[in-house]
């Protein structure tokens, strides 16, 4: 009976109402895209500097909060055109993310260069709590509403009548998927075609060799932190538009951990595929198998998948095989 519920019943349900299946799949896909973006931010920094940036999740919140906060200030100062204020705020926020990258490089990374990884990791802990405190101090601790309309992000639904039912897609989700793919493609081209991209890959492979050909590590670190700050900002806007902007969002950073374990810490395709697998796996698992375990399995299923992966493929889907020579 149990085996029937695990292995047969869910698939019968999928076949019986394909529209529900597609709906769930779509929601998983959207969640997956956002997970992938957060993981991408981690991977960028980890590849270039070997730092596991615990603050990546908070950078998502910080970016979104700064955007809304600056917007509110601009409106208070009397910029009546909402759209103008919104895009001005977006520009200023990008500036803030650059300053953040620059400050992190100068104040945190540079003095700690050549220290053991665990020390750099702890430093990003410190950065996390600094950003939380600083964000609350400047913009207040109450949760805010993302300025999605003012940024011309679409709202509402598209109802598709397919498969004998209705599948409704939120337009903001479609926008999120499109913007995420554009951004990932852009980053990939930047990495493979430009001189700085080559330098970034060089630094990721060997610090001392990069130094010996005159690549400046300082400059590269500012660039990767800025790039992952931008990724965080975009994630924050998209996520904020679906719920709200508050520090409760920081838990989503922890959601990126299973994605990283699945995709490998150094692989950009891994982050994307891992994100999608976790997102879709969570939603489908919860919808079709959740009843067996009394629902709510969405919150831990990802970690369980990651654990299973760790046992069989510790380097991740796309990570390099770990060969220890003695």
């Amino acid at each position, binding site marked *: 009976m149990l085996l029937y519920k695990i292995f047969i019943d869910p698939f019968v349900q999928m076949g019986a109402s394909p529209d529900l299946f597609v709906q769930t799949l779509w929601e998983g896909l959207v969640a997956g895209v956002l997970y992938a973006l957060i993981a991408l931010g981690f991977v960028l920094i980890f590849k270039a500097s070997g730092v596991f940036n615990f603050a990546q999740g908070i950078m998502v919140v910080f970016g979104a909060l700064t955007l809304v906060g600056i917007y509110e200030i601009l409106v208070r100062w009397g910029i009546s055109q909402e759209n103008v204020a919104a895009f001005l705020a977006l520009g200023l926020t990008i500036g803030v993310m650059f300053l953040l990258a620059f400050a992190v490089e100068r104040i945190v990374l540079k003095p700690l260069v050549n220290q053991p990884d665990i020390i750099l990791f702890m430093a990003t802990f410190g950065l996390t709590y600094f950003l939380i405190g600083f964000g609350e101090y400047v913009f207040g601790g109450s949760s805010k509403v993302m300025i999605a309309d003012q940024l011309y992000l679409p709202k509402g639904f598209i109802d598709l009548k397919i498969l004998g039912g209705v599948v409704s897609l939120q337009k903001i989700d479609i926008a999120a998927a499109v913007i995420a793919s554009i951004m990932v493609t852009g980053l990939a081209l930047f990495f493979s075609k430009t*001189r700085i991209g080559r*330098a970034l890959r*060089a630094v990721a492979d060997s610090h001392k*060799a990069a*130094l*010996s*050909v*005159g690549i400046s590590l300082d400059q590269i670190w500012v660039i990767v932190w800025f790039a992952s700050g931008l990724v965080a900002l975009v994630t924050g806007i998209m996520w904020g538009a679906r719920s709200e902007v508050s520090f409760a969002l920081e838990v989503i950073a922890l959601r990126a951990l299973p994605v990283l374990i699945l995709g490998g810490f150094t692989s950009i395709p891994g982050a994307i595929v891992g994100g999608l697998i976790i997102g879709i796996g969570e939603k489908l698992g919860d919808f079709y198998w959740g009843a067996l375990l009394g629902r709510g399995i969405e919150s831990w299923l990802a970690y369980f998948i990651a654990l299973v992966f760790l046992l069989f493929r510790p380097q991740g889907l796309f990570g390099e095989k770990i060969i220890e020579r003695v």
Partner: protein
Amino acid sequence: MRAPSVAEIAAGDVLLAVEGVSLAFGGVKAVSDVSFDIRKGEIRAIIGPNGAGKTSMLNVINGFYHPQAGRITFKGKTRRAMRPHAAAAGGIARTFQNVALFKSMTTLDNIMAGRSLKMHKSFFWQIFRHGPALSEEIEHRKTAEEIIDFLEIEHIRRIPVGKLPYGLQKRVELGRALAMEPDLLLLDEPMAGMNLEEKEDMSRYILSMNNYYGTTIALIEHDMGVVMDLSDRVVVLDYGRKIADGTPDEVKKNKAVIDAYLGVAH
């Protein structure tokens, strides 16, 4: 173009000089009060038993290590210590004892990475220059291709270097250093772990660079035959101290050198 004779080098300009350099890690003295110079256009060997401080010395020259005492004069400018970026920008390129390549990148990308800095070009590198009409990337790409031709590694242009055998990796690393069009090239055991044929190839490349492009070379090498054949002058380190400095013949007869290599009864 012809390699300068020993007499010409002896009279030549000093490209780099270290004076009284001392370097310690905690209580371990890696280099103690070492002074020597490298003249323009010569091949200068640094030899000595294991742990003599040779690699430390190269790391001081290209700015990876900052010595506690001493001065370094490069191209007439005296500093307490070099910095890696300043050294690279000033025209010092190097290879590493244990090969430090960008393993996930192709041979071509590795060599292009060597052109990250727009180096000021020495006169001898005119052969690699091209018309101003070409865009920068194409121009640099051409240079990279010519280096690939020179080192006979066309067949591995598109292969990630991590997959290459060791001997070829060493050659790619040399190519990357060469791509910087260096005035001073530091080679840390360029022939370690190579078979005879590979050593001969490498010797040929080193001599060609020196002869045709006038690149000044400082090399660390354990194969004495190679050192004696290639180098114009040799400096010998032992336990971080300089024990001899001179032409290969002089050094070969030096008693302190023989003692250091063969050991003496105390």
